[in-house]
């Protein structure tokens, strides 16, 4: 149960939170663009800005990336850091 609760989409993370990417479920083109910007399963992300609506800013591999709410909803993460 608790295990399940920790799995959320990137768009549900609050500002300042850390998480680890589990899966990326966009279309092939979106996945590819995300991968080249550093979004791959297993990588740590930090939510830099999420005001609950509109696009959000995530820091991944030292880069800030602005991402639409719709795209963020397709990235599944596990809350907390593993380090």
């Amino acid at each position: 149960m608790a295990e399940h609760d920790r799995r959320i989409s990137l768009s549900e993370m609050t500002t300042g939170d850390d998480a680890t990417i589990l899966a990326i479920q966009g279309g092939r083109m979106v996945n590819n663009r995300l991968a080249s910007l550093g979004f791959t399963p297993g990588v740590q992300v930090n939510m830099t800005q999420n005001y609950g609506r509109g696009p959000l800013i995530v820091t991944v591999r030292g880069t800030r990336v602005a991402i639409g709410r719709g795209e963020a909803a397709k990235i599944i993460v596990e809350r907390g850091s593993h380090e």
Partner: protein
Amino acid sequence: MSNCHDTSAQTASPLAIMDVDAPLIALAGQPNMGKSTLFNLLTGLNQHVGNWPGKTVERREGHFDLNGRSVRLVDLPGTYSLTAYSPEEVIAREFILREKPSVVIAVVSAANLERSLYLVAELATLKAPVVVALNMMDVAAQEGIHVDAQVLEAALGLPVVPMTASKAVGVRELLGVVQDILSGKPAPRPLPPEVRADHRKVLDKIETLIIAHVPEPYPHNWVALKLLEGDVEVTRMMHTALPNDVWDVVHDVLRLHDDAFLAVASGRYEWIGRMVRAAVARPRVGQIGMTERLDRRAAHPLWGLFILAGILGLVFWLTFTIGSPIQAWLDEQVVTPLAGLAAGALAGAPFWAQGMVVDGLIGGVGTVLTFLPILVVFFAAFALLEDVGYMARAAYVMDNLMHLMGLHGKSFLPLFLGFGCNVPAIMGTRVIDSWPARLLTILIAPLVPCTARMAVVAFIAPAFFGANAIWVSWGLVLLSLLALVSSGALLNRVIFKGQRSAFIMEMPLYHIPNARTIGLLVWQRSLSFVRKAGTAILAMSLLVWALSYLPGGDLNTSFLARFGQLIEPVGSWMGFDWRLTVALITSFPAKENAIATLGVLFGNSPNVGLANILVASFSNASALSFLVVTMLFIPCMATVAVTKQETNSWRWTLLSVFLLLGISVAAGAAVYHLGVLFGL
């Protein structure tokens, strides 16, 4: 094909024809790595901007001297990776594989090493002779990041040169390494990244299957990797190249592993991770960088909009405070005397020759060119905001509004450029990744009120509305933007079925702007505007002049006047007589021509008292309607030409023209009748 650089894939651009034996160097790198800064630093004004053959992707090539020998430098498009998902990425990888440059300089950012090495990981698999330019050492230091270039060099197995291109630091060292490779020092052979462990067997299997059938010049392990990644171009190529039975086996293997691209990407990041762990130290972890501090305001959903509005206001204020007086001065002190001089010099020539030079050439092209100072100020402000890194923030905060039209934040940037001139705006849509979004942006961009239209407003509004002119002007701008948003929303529903493209955009670190980069950007944009004035605008000015002169040599009885009288009934819906209608038609070569035409139609004392004559001739309702129609009327000729060039389709170009024609006539008629109703 009309593209003058057709042959460049094989023989390269005109610059290179002078020296075909010159060594070829390619500059590769992701966006925001300072690649353009380095290119400009090396080539200065010895550069040529064109298009890649058959593509609307900018191709920049230049040359420079390296120890007395001329070297060709090709700036590859800035790309995050080398997949087949965008034309830019295909261009970059095909160039490296087919043209086989002697050296590929890969520009990476020390402040962003992990992400920027991704492209290097792809280049390593291509077996290109790579030199890594470790740029932005200053930004890295400012963000508290230390990169040890020597350790990185040892880990990568590639030469690494630390540098700060914006301050010209490290360029000599970079050229030294390039020189070494050119003079025959064996090119380094890095150990390329491997695919994640769970997919290695599959990759081997594919490679064994295809090894005998891979066409030149593609390396077979690269092709195998790209097949596994699901690369559409490589898959298509191998489908043709492989015998049917082999293809069936390969195809079955690939279908079982259609998520393999994540394994490939992860493999690259594992490789990168090893390099970064060795070479990068972040002694001040947790320190809040300048970028984060600035973004708390600049990227805030509310504050961000205020800041954007403030910056836009400042840019317009600067443009009109500095640019407009120069424009007016040029018009009065250069173009008018020049016309007088030409009229004098051609006094003995046939009357039509004098008219063609004075009214057609100087009046048309000359007037358009006087807008250059306004554009230069605007381009400079835009280039500065771009170079500092602010534009990504503007796109970010505008994302919500752009969603109304099914677009996203990136479309805001070209639209903003449209306030200066619609031509660079339409060319600027190249930053948008998805074609439907780009097309939609091209279609609505002409609704952004450009400086030329504002010049017409600036002339007519004060004459009719006195102190209220400022409110009328603001109202006209708001009306244009309202028309833009609503037609964008409508087009998205009707033509693009409400689809929306993904918004994924890097937010680069802020950095100190580089004067050279800005200067060259302004220079190139201005040059392309002047070229347009010298070609398309020139031709059209002469055509309109001829129509206004023939057959009798008098505008009032000319073909143009007859045409204006013919369609006067349409004009009358909007409260126009034939003269206002003709003025509107002649605004096609250049929007501000409307004033010049009215000057000619209302007697030959140009501009002196024209405002008063107009006020006496037309009601306020007609004037307001004329202004509204001018704001929304069909795009100017240069904009139509560039729309055709960028969409490569007459259908979309004509749609753009008729869309604006419909909107402007409807809005003009509505405003006129409302105006009459309220007693204007």
